C-alpha cells in the first residue's frame, strides 16, 4: 500500500508546489493524475519517487517512509533517458548490477521479448525511434520488479498512434506482475484508458481537487458511450478546477491559470 500523508512541498524560493496531499493507492491499482500545467502533478510524483522528498508530511510504502529512491519504486520519465553509451540490453539491465549474470541476462531477455524489442538488444539507443526508446525505458524500470511504477507523462512526446499503442502495451505489461501504477498525464483519453481512478489536481498550491472512479471493463473502447461518459465527467472536473483557480487567484496567477486552461 502506497500512502501519501499530508504531503507538501515548498521550494527553497518559497514557492509552494504541493499542499496537504493525502492519498492511498492500493497494490495493483492504476491511479492517473491529471491537471492543468503547474498544478504540481509532476512534483507529487517526484516526492513519491524519493528524488525530491516532501518538505511536509510523508510518503509511506508498506510501512517504510520514502525519503530517497527506493528499490520497490521504479520511475519512467517523460524522456526515455536511456544511457547513450550502453546498448539496449545493457540499458534494460542497468538496475540489475547486483544480480548474478545469468539471472540478469534472463530477465533482460524476458523484458525485451515482452516489449517486442528482442531484435534491438545489441543496438545503440540512438538507433531507436521515440516509441521504441520509451519501451526500453519502461522495460528498464520494470525489470527489477518494483511494487510501484511511477510514470511522468511518459507518452506525451509521442505521436497519437504510437501513444495509443504504448498505452495498450503498458496495460499488458502491468497485467504480468500487477505493480501499482501512478501516472501523470495531461491527456484525458489516456487517463481514462488506463486508470482505475482519475485524480484531478488544482494549482496554487497543488492540491487534490477531485477523484473520479473509472471502473470500465478492460480493454476499454475509446469510442464507447461509457468511455465518453467518464471523459465528460473528468473534463467537467478539470474545467471546474481551473475556474476556481481563476476566481481565487490574484491577477498574475489568473493569467497563468487561463494559459494553463488551453492545454487541451
Amino acid at each position: 500500500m502506497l500512502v501519501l500523508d499530508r504531503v507538501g512541498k515548498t521550494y527553497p524560493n518559497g514557492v509552494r508546489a504541493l499542499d496537504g496531499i493525502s492519498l492511498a493507492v492500493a497494490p495493483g491499482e492504476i491511479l492517473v493524475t491529471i491537471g492543468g500545467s503547474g498544478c504540481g502533478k509532476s512534483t507529487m510524483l517526484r516526492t513519491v519517487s524519493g528524488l525530491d522528498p516532501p518538505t511536509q508530511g510523508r510518503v509511506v510504502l508498506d510501512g517504510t517512509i520514502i525519503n530517497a529512491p527506493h528499490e520497490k519504486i521504479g520511475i519512467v520519465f517523460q524522456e526515455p533517458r536511456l544511457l547513450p553509451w550502453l546498448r539496449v540490453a545493457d540499458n534494460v539491465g542497468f538496475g540489475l548490477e547486483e544480480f548474478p549474470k545469468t539471472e540478469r541476462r534472463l530477465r533482460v531477455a524476458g523484458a525485451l521479448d515482452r516489449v517486442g524489442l528482442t531484435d534491438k538488444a545489441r543496438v545503440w539507443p540512438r538507433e531507436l525511434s521515440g516509441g521504441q526508446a520509451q519501451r526500453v525505458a519502461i522495460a528498464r524500470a520494470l525489470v527489477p520488479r518494483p511494487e510501484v511504477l511511477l510514470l511522468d507523462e511518459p507518452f506525451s512526446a509521442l505521436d497519437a498512434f504510437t501513444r495509443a499503442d504504448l498505452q495498450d502495451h503498458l496495460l499488458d505489461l502491468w497485467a504480468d506482475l500487477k505493480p501499482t501504477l501512478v501516472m501523470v498525464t495531461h491527456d484525458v483519453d489516456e487517463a481514462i484508458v488506463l486508470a482505475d481512478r482519475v485524480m484531478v489536481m488544482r494549482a496554487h498550491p497543488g492540491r487534490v481537487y477531485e477523484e473520479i472512479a473509472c471502473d470500465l471493463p478492460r480493454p476499454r473502447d475509446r469510442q464507447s458511450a461509457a468511455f465518453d461518459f467518464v471523459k465528460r465527467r473528468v473534463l467537467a472536473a478539470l474545467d471546474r478546477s481551473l475556474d476556481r483557480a481563476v476566481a481565487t487567484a490574484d491577477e498574475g496567477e489568473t493569467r497563468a491559470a487561463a494559459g494553463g486552461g488551453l492545454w487541451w
Partner: protein
Amino acid sequence: MTAGVEQAGVPEATPKAGAARLLRPALGFLLPVALALFWEIAVRMGLSNGRLVPPPSVIWNTFSDLAATGELQQHALATLWRVACGFVFGVMAGTIFGAITGYSALTHRVVDPTLQALRSIPSIAWVPLFILWFGIFEASKIILIAVGVFFPVYLGVMGAVMSVDRKIVEVGRVFRLSGLAMVRRILLPAVMPAYVIALRAGLGLGWMFVVAAEFLGASTGLGFLLIDGQQLGKPAQIVAAIVAFAILGKASDWLIVLVSSPFLRWEDRFART
C-alpha cells in the same frame, strides 16, 4: 546469443568498407604531396636556388643521413620521452583538478580563478623560473610540458563534468547508485567524448611546449636539431626536424583517437561516415 548477431553483421560490411578505408586516408596526402612535388620541380627547373627552402629531395637526404647515423632516432626519442612524461603528469593533474572543480561548486569558486589566472601566463614566461627551481636538465623541461598539457585537460574535464545532464544523473539516483558507482557508471562514460578532445588538445600543447623547453639549453631532442640547424645554417636540418615533429605529433594524436574509439562508438555523430 546476442554476440552472434553482431558477428554476423561484420563480414558483410568488410568488403565494402575495404576500398574506402584505403582511399580515405590517401586523400589527406594529396595536398602535401602536391606541394612537395611543385617545389621539387620549381627548384629543379631553376626557378629558385632552394637554399633557404630546400626541396623535398634534399630534406629527404638530410633525413636519411641523420637516420643512418642514429642521430635522428636519438633526438626523436629524447623529445618523445619528454612529451610522454609531461603528458602523463599534466593529464593526471588536469583530470584530478578538473574533476574536483567540476563536481564541487565550492572548490570551483576557490580554485578555478587562480588556475585561470595561471593559464593566461605565456609558456615561455615560466622557463627562467623553472630553470632556477628545477635545474637545466630533464625535470624543468618535463614540468614545463606538463604545465602546457594541464590547462586544456583541466578545462575540458571541468567543463565536461559540469555539463553532465542532470536527467541522466537522476537515472543513476533512481537505481540508488553509490557515489563511486555513479562516477564509474554515469559520470565517466558521460564525460568520455569531451575527455578525449581535451586529451588531444593537451597533447597538442605538449608538442608545442617541448620545443620551447628544448630551445633553452638542450643537447638532445628535435628542438635542439632546430636550434643547431639555425646556428650552423642548415635549413634542411631544420625542415627535417619540423617534418619529424609533424609526423610524431600526428601519430601520437592518431594513437589517442585509436585507443579511445572503442569507448566512443555509441556517439551520435554529425558525420558518421
